[in-house]
């Protein structure tokens, strides 16, 4: 059995744990050109969430990230179909500045759907600190919204330097470093320590043994968030990695749900009410 803690035993035996709901803060949805997904559609993703005890998934739809013609409409539809299980990030593409301005203008129509914004700067080829994103950053800063950014070590678009720029400029935005500057682990820790509005999100980090311990020790488990890129990665794999890591069950509770509950409380009535 993985490790020997009460939480590990519970997940090992049952696959999900009532006292430890999981909040997946980095998901997607729908088909994607490069990957075959057996469970990419909304209903199948909800099944996966049920199996692993994932209470809520915050996601951006693949269409919104890869097909500007389609945009965020499929995400809005999915959240409204499963309002207790899903929230969306309004996905932005800086190659189309007018759509960013429009998304910011209309954001309040979708307060039941969105918790903030999502950037995918490396894929779109424009730095997260670039001018086209400015209206969204200013909006997030003014309203305390979450901004999930794909971040990768060494990237000119969403590496450490770009993250420092936006973290300093927009201190009231809650900035989630998707993949935690993958590979540039020391910079991720330094930035989390330097900027209290930055959180380390663990998608694709959970299969790098040693990173979890380094983050927990250097930045603190209260700054770490669970994520899987669902439907890319099996949540049980991510949970199992956390159970294997040399951290405490208190750390695991922080990472799997407590930190997310605090971040999501302003946006999700059930969490605000202490469900």
């Amino acid at each position, binding site marked *: 059995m*993985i490790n020997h803690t009460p939480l590990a035993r519970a997940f090992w035996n049952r696959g999900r744990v009532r006292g430890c709901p999981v909040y997946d803060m980095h998901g997607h949805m729908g088909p994607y050109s*490069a990957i*075959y997904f057996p469970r990419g559609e909304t209903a199948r993703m909800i099944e996966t969430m049920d199996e692993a005890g994932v209470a809520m998934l915050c996601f951006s739809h693949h269409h919104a990230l890869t097909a500007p013609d389609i945009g965020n409409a499929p995400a809005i539809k999915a959240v409204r179909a499963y309002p207790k299980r899903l929230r969306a990030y309004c996905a932005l593409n800086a190659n189309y500045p007018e759509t960013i301005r429009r998304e910011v203008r209309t954001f309040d129509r979708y307060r039941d759907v969105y918790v903030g914004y999502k950037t995918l700067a490396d894929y779109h080829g424009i730095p997260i600190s670039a001018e086209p994103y400015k209206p969204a950053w200013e909006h997030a800063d003014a309203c305390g919204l979450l901004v999930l950014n794909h971040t990768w070590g060494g990237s000119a678009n969403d590496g450490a330097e770009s993250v420092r720029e936006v973290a300093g400029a927009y201190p009231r935005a809650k900035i989630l470093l998707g993949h935690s500057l993958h590979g540039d682990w020391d910079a991720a820790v330094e930035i989390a320590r330097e900027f209290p509005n930055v959180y380390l999100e663990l998608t694709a980090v959970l*299969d790098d*043994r040693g990173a979890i311990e380094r983050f927990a020790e250097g930045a603190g488990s209260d700054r770490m968030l669970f994520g899987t890129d669902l439907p890319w990665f099996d949540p049980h794999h991510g949970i199992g990695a956390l159970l294997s890591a040399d951290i405490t069950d208190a750390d695991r509770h922080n990472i799997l749900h407590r930190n997310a509950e605090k971040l999501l409380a302003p946006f999700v009535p059930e969490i605000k009410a202490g469900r």
Partner: protein
Amino acid sequence: MEFFDCNCWFGLPQKRHLAPVETADRLLAEMDRAGVAKALVWHITQRECSASAGNDFLAKAIAAHDRLAGCWTILPPQCGETPPARELFDRMARTNLRALRAFPSDHRYLLNRVTLGPLLDEAVRAKVPLLLSVAKGTDWRDVYALLAEFPDLTCVVCDHGCWGTDRQFRPLIERYPRVYIDLAAYLLDGGIEDFVEKYGPDRMLFSTGFPDAYHGGMMLALRHAKIPEAAKCAIASGNLERILSEARL
């Protein structure tokens, strides 16, 4: 369910690694902590230092540990660095190295009949498995070209990546009956279930990629996969036990 990890390594890499595991004793301690019964291992010196020296190093390192079996790293025979196949297999049998590994890109040779014909012909006849890591020293074109020349080779494709590899490995599974995939990087949600439904459980092998990855990730994923218990047991250890028992070293 007993876990037999078909793809893990130990030793100190030349470049900085997040959490290396230096010795066989440390590896076993980590396996005990996780609940992994056995492992088919290789040593980092086999890839980064010298295949020949690394083979000897690995054999000595695991000699006292019957829960660890090793992999012999092959080289082209033309430079006199690899003994003839039968002699090689005898040495492997004596040192509990029960499978072959190859790192053709790192070791600068082509993984094909011109280079390795007699050795791999004998591996086919003796059903000695060859493990290839798509992330470490091999690529998909190497694997496809090799299997076109040796269609009956027992071949385990390892570390095939977490970014969607079904379109790359499924054609091999369908074409070549003795090709297997490992699980170390197969994080795809629903992937195990989908594979087992289409191909059955006999072509998939549990592995972790340790120490690059945590033991517990794939253990928990397999434990709670929506497939029959017998299929889980086959993937966790039964298939690898069968493959190794078939090898006539």
